[in-house]
């Protein structure tokens, strides 16, 4: 098959993926409260409304707060975990790695119910910090994977040479390992941030009625009929995700981050 044909296949599939988003972007421009395509009386006033209407601003603030803190917590757990298991082996190491990978591998509704019952039992149900901790634990997998990947790429002789040159354990960590890991830490944080922002079921079951996040708010609003403001929020989410992943792709090696280890043609 020729290269052009392969590219065509890729582009068609991508077009199908992007198509619903394009329709959503278009209906967000409807003037009246209707979801028509092509839009009627195009206007941006629903965009203005999102950023002025406290009905939407509060969930937006909740979502951002939760995502920023939860991603930080996920990194704060994943970084020491990845460093600890890096040069060790044994049952404890495997258990710890498994616990770090499990939350993301199971259907999220299971974790969601687990968190819900947990917070009901110990107190904290309906609190924003309960959502933050739940998201932080749920998303540990992402920074754990990216940071472990970064650690695998560190040449052991860099560490040994730093030690010969007088660096103790802490100095090696500070001057060699962490600077080399930084891109992987940042992308792990970004992954966790974007996924926390979009996560519905845990946020809903842990504090859905008191701390509305944007996805929860959207879903609630959907029940009362579709309005262009839903499309506006969706566009915002798509743009934000694309922007963050675009930045990772621009400043990091996305193919390698996704697991391609063969040397790449450029």
């Amino acid at each position: 098959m020729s290269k052009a044909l392969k590219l065509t296949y890729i582009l068609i599939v991508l077009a199908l993926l992007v198509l619903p988003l394009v329709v959503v972007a278009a209906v967000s421009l409807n003037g009246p409260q209707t979801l028509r395509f092509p839009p009627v009386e195009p206007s941006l006033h629903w965009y203005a409304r999102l950023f002025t209407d406290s009905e939407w601003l509060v969930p937006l603030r909740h979502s951002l707060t939760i995502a920023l803190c939860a991603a930080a917590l996920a990194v704060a757990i994943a970084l020491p975990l990845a460093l600890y298991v890096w040069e060790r082996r044994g049952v404890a190491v495997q258990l710890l790695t498994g616990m770090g990978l499990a939350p993301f591998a199971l259907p999220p509704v299971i974790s969601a119910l687990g968190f819900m019952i947990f917070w009901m039992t110990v107190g904290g149900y309906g609190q924003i910090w309960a959502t933050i901790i739940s998201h932080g634990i749920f998303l540990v997998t992402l920074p754990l994977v990216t940071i472990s990947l970064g650690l695998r790429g560190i040449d052991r002789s860099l560490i040994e040479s730093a030690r010969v040159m007088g660096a103790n354990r802490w100095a090696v960590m500070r001057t060699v390992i962490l600077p080399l890991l930084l891109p992987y830490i940042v992308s792990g944080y970004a992954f966790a941030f974007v996924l926390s922002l979009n996560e519905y079921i845990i946020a809903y079951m842990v504090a859905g009625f008191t701390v509305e996040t944007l996805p929860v708010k959207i879903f609630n609003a959907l029940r009362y009929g579709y309005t262009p403001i839903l499309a506006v929020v969706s566009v915002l989410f798509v743009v934000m995700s694309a922007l963050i992943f675009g930045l990772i792709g621009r400043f990091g090696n996305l193919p390698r981050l996704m697991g391609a280890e063969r040397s790449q043609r450029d």
Partner: protein
Amino acid sequence: MTELRIDGVSKEFGSFRALDNVSLDIPNGKFVCLLGPSGCGKTTLLRVIAGLESPTAGRVHVGGEDQTELATHKRGMGMVFQSLALFPHLNVAENVTYPLTIRGVAKAERDARAEELLDLVRLPGMGARRIHQLSGGQRQRVAIARGLAISPKVFLLDEPLSALDAALREHMQIELRQIQQRLGVTTIVVTHDQKEALTMADLVIVMKDGVIQQAGAPMEVYHNPANAFVAGFIGTTNLIPCEVADGTISALGHTMPVVDGDRVAAGSGPAQLSVRPDHVLILPKGQGIPAEVTFLRDLGDSRQVMLNADGQELVANLPQGSDVQLTPGQHVGLDFRAGERVVVT
């Protein structure tokens, strides 16, 4: 004065014995080459000296101080790794002064030292470059400069030139030797390249299977190998089974009296005769040991003849300017130059 003393060091990895009771004294200011085939334990020995491996048994003394239990980062050594291990996130000057930064040396002093070191390795003004902008030879020099940054008591290099192409490698061998002589730092280089060892070293230490086979000056090791392994590993040689008895050497059905200059370490009995290709003499057919020419190759500055004498493969170098005409399949005679024969076990 002994700078470095290795005393009965052994190192085991599981059931594999990488170093087997190695003892060694290295005098101050010497350039030492650890030479041997891969897996002989030379790199392990270097890593034990650096503190990157702890020996299973034995002690390591540096400058009279027992450093066997001392953590790597407190030993104050300089080291160049095979992969060079330059830090990709630091520029050239930051790499070179890394050991000083770690020791809390002030910025101004570090900058001055970086300039000095880069001058030493002939990379003046390159401090701001990134590592990935450098050529292989330049990286090599940065790694050497970094290893010397704190004026270490002992400077260790693990196959430092193996990544370079042949011409550049020879050039760097000479340069490394010159830098070492200028600074007078005790230097230990691991290499598997016997030519490299002969070019640079004051002291060559030949190792095999975790055991030191011979330690001596390059020419001493070359001319007076302690055993067949050393004879075969240093330079090219012909190893021929022989019998020593009553001041004679018998090999290939030919008996030769031992003369002044021949080195016969073994007593009487079976041994091996080592003769360098330069000392294999080609005679007309009918004289000496009968042999057949199997292959000829012209190396430009010399001609090499492969021979077969009663099943024994031999190599001879034809002297420069020799006009002896040979063709493969031709029958000739052989002799080994008197006074250049070495019998080893």
